[in-house]
């Protein structure tokens, strides 16, 4: 595996997963997408993250819903979904305000993919979770507070 990995890294160079897949003939080059957005994932505030996503000034919108429980039994695994009935959603990004780096994940949706994704994230403490959506070239957002509780025997 290590050998393979080194080879892959060498071959991949900085192409990212999609470059690699394209190189391996798994997907066509036209599907290869942008590299991992380091500046967005490294950002430490919501503002910086929005800037790195090109979403500065995103307007609050009721056209997006965050599906998640109000209270999480444990912060290591918090289920969060983002849904929108809007047509033509291109990007969904999931931010957790009080995490050291707010951006948890971002999804790029080709035409035909529904604006409905669900994943699970780590939350260090009770925080607002923010969904940022790019639709028709514009960014909109919504938020929901999720309480993280301590549990079990306590130790």
């Amino acid at each position, binding site marked *: *595996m290590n050998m393979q*990995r080194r080879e*892959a*890294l060498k071959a*991949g160079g900085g192409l*990212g*997963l*999609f470059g*690699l*897949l394209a190189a391996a003939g*798994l*997907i*066509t080059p036209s*599907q290869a*997408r942008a590299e*991992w*957005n380091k500046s967005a*994932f490294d950002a430490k505030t919501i503002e910086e993250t929005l800037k790195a996503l090109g979403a500065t000034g995103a307007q609050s919108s009721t056209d997006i819903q965050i599906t998640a429980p109000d209270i999480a039994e444990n912060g*290591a*695994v*918090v*289920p969060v*979904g983002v849904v929108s009935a809007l047509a033509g959603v291109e990007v969904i990004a999931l931010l*957790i305000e009080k*995490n*050291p*780096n707010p*951006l*948890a*994940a*971002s*999804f*790029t*949706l*080709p035409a*035909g*993919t*529904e604006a*409905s*994704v*669900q*994943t*699970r*994230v*780590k*939350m260090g403490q009770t925080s607002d979770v923010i969904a940022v959506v790019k639709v028709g070239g514009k960014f909109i957002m919504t938020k929901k507070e999720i309480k993280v509780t301590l549990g079990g025997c306590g130790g």
Partner: protein
Amino acid sequence: MADPMKIRASAKDGITEVKVLMSHEMETGQRKDSSGNLVPAHFITELSAEHNGKQVLAAQFGTAVSKNPYLAFKFKGGAKGDKLAVSWMDNKGEKRTDEVAIN
């Protein structure tokens, strides 16, 4: 080698619903081991899902995605027996691709 994913893909009323579980530590880089040393970050950074070779989702993850990541999404189209493949790559360059038939 990384352990296999568990992928479920089911088509109903013209929509295919995909649920994926990945086997990965998703190490944040902020945890200390028992001797007090920081454990280096090790996490999936990119993911792609393809239906019959056409991309239906691309995702980028940070360290805040939970260990053994879960992902669910839906796309239009897809029929029983079609191929649905998911690939991921992590920050160390490890990668994994698994494929199932839609049912």
